[in-house]
């Protein structure tokens, strides 16, 4: 499930881009999970027509995925096929990254990808495809076959899915997997527009730079235009863009934290792994031989002259400490230097430590240690357990630890909150200064000119902070 402020941020973005009605549908799906059309209408209290139009927009914009599932009939009725809709939270958040994505594309491919000349468009399209910035759209409504008799979907998929937990999450992952085009087809350009690979060919989405509209039909066909001529449709490949941004942030981090050489090695490794058929998550990256890394390193500027020994030394130092450093920065600024030491001790220890031990190791007075630990615990940065010893003399011990995964989710939620705050403040400043912003240039003199410049300065601070924060959000989300 999406965190509280993640939902608020996504809803705010959808509202900014597509209006309040769409944001209401989006919020409903994010808060309540996967729903049918009837359920969405009931919970949002919007008219059927409005919900259908909103779903259509959200599906077009890759913010909602539909899928068909078999529902058991009640009271001896035959099973029937129903359509359910799931929110695609990540794609909603990507809406605020469009300028960044455009920058990556223009840095790599130049600025002429937006031209309207058909030959230039086709050429640009091919270049975008080769760079994997675009991909085939997923199927609009894949059908999920019911699990085999006697097995729940969680059991069927084995230990890994069992770890995920609830059956509903497994259904959604199945839906995404079923909708996604095959790996071999994902970036494949056909000569003509017709494609026979899958019967559930995508019939809606965004082609490069354009929107499509659908005719209104009955039931869930109102939302999904099943009769439309099958053709290949393409969309932005967010996965590749996020991967590029994540790599850039990691290299920059390593350069600052370790040295230039380590950054060169990491850059080479990431370049080598970029085109492998791996999932986005860091832990599934392909292993690379030292020879392959060396070959790539010496091609890099500054890499010539590096020998194996120095590469080995650099690799030893390469550990992804991005997340820990980010959280530690917050603890330092919010709670002070002693809290920072205490938090780092617990983070490095990775296990329970008792209050006195923490006090002794961090050189913080015992009473201050307890106060700081309670503050961090109250704000969900630490986990605490009480242990009472029995015997002649009963003693109460307080044990503390950092639980990394819950902490990551908590900090990520705070970052969504901060991103929302920045956006709201930008809107607030724009609104406050709209009279000045609407004035013609020649009238901006004296005091008005000062205020105009101040508005510009404020906007730059807020927008650049939002961009930087967003990159940190991407790192936190994906690691």
């Amino acid at each position, binding site marked *: 499930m999406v965190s509280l402020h993640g939902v608020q941020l996504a809803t705010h973005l959808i509202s900014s881009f597509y209006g309040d009605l769409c944001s209401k549908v989006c919020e409903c799906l994010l808060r309540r999970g996967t729903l049918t059309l009837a359920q969405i209408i009931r919970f949002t209290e919007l008219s059927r027509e409005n919900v259908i139009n909103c779903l259509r927009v959200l599906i077009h914009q890759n913010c909602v995925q539909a899928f068909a599932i078999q529902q058991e009939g009640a009271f001896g009725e035959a099973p029937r096929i129903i359509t359910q809709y799931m929110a695609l939270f990540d794609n909603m958040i990507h809406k605020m990254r469009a300028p960044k994505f455009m920058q990556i594309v223009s840095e790599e491919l130049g600025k002429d990808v937006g031209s309207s000349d058909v030959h230039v468009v086709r050429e640009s399209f091919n270049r975008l495809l080769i760079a994997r910035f675009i991909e085939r759209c997923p199927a609009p409504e894949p059908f999920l076959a019911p699990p085999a008799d006697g097995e729940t979907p969680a059991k069927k998929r084995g230990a890994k899915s069992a770890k995920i937990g609830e059956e509903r999450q497994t259904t959604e992952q199945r839906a995404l997997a079923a909708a996604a085009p095959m790996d071999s087809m994902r970036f494949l350009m056909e000569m003509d527009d017709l494609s026979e690979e899958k019967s559930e060919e995508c019939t809606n989405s965004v082609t490069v730079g354009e929107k499509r509209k659908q005719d209104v039909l009955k039931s869930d066909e109102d939302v999904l235009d099943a009769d439309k001529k099958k053709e290949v449709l393409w969309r932005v490949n967010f996965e590749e863009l996020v991967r590029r941004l994540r790599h850039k942030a990691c290299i920059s*981090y390593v350069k*600052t934290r370790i040295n230039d050489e380590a950054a060169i090695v990491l850059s080479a490794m990431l370049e080598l792994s970029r085109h492998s058929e791996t999932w986005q998550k860091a832990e599934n990256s392909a292993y690379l031989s030292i020879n392959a890394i060396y070959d790539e390193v010496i091609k890099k500027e500054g890499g010539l002259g590096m020998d194996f020994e120095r590469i080995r030394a650099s690799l030893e130092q390469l550990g992804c400490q991005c*997340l820990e450093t980010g959280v530690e920065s*917050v603890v330092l*600024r919010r709670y002070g230097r002693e809290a920072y030491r205490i938090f780092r001790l617990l983070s490095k220890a990775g296990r329970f430590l008792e209050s006195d031990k923490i006090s002794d190791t961090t*050189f913080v007075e*015992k009473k201050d240690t307890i106060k700081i630990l309670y503050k961090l615990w109250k704000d969900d940065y630490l986990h605490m357990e009480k242990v009472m010893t029995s015997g002649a003399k009963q003693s109460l011990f307080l044990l503390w630890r950092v639980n990394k995964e819950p902490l990551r989710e908590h900090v990520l939620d705070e970052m969504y909150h*901060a991103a*929302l705050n920045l956006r709201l403040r930008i809107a607030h400043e724009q609104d406050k200064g709209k009279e000045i912003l609407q004035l013609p240039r020649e009238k901006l003199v004296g005091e008005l000119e000062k205020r105009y410049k101040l508005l510009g300065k404020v906007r730059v601070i807020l927008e650049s902070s939002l961009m930087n*924060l967003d990159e940190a959000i991407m790192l936190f989300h994906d690691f």
Partner: protein
Amino acid sequence: MAPRHLCAMVLCELLASRGWLMMLRGMSRRLVNPSLKRKRPETDSPGLVDAERAILDSIKGKKDLGIWARDIKQETKLADHVVNKSLKSLLAKKLIKEVVNIQNKGKKHYMAVEFEPSKEISGGEWYVDGNLDKELINVLKQLCLRYLRTQKVATLDGVYNDLKKNRVVTFDISNQQVSEILNSMVLDNDLIEVKSTGLGDYHSIPIGTVCYRIASAAGVAKGPKVGAFASIPCGACPRINLCTPNGVISPGTCVYYNKWLSIDF
């Protein structure tokens, strides 16, 4: 005099004063060697009335843990005024002493003079009169940093030997204490802890040995992107949990934002 020398002089003077105090403590430990007690066991409490003897026995029984005044009263079942009078008398006769219990500095804690407070009572080697000796800790940190700045990388033994060799520390400091200082500097991100690879800067250090080096100048808050959250008001805000879009605390009305953006009210 060059600032470097002046600094070293100031450090030495401070350490000397600490050393002098530490030597006195050590001397007092030697002076109160229980040999006197052993020579005349039956006369270590001459002229004591029964109440005083009972209280002294109670205090001695707690050895290096000491005992709180109220616990003495409960144990001996003596009246308050009797206990108080006896304690004053025993203190005057230098048979017992008052010590600070770090667990509760406000309460009077008593101990027989022949014992030194345990770590549980005193807080340990880094505590003086129940308070953390922050000045000493900071001085030792500066000395370690000074040495590490002259080396690209150093082991614990290297730092310890430097402190001993240059006699900058006039009292006995253990390897363990230096290790604690270095670890706290790692936690402060002043140093980073690495393991020797035996190559490059580590060529003279056995592979796998724990070493220390000065952390990079970029530090924590200035790190790229990952420090982005900490560098905006929300990252430092103690009220973020109370902040809502249209609430009393909101991004539109936030005073931290106003200050950050240097906007007048």
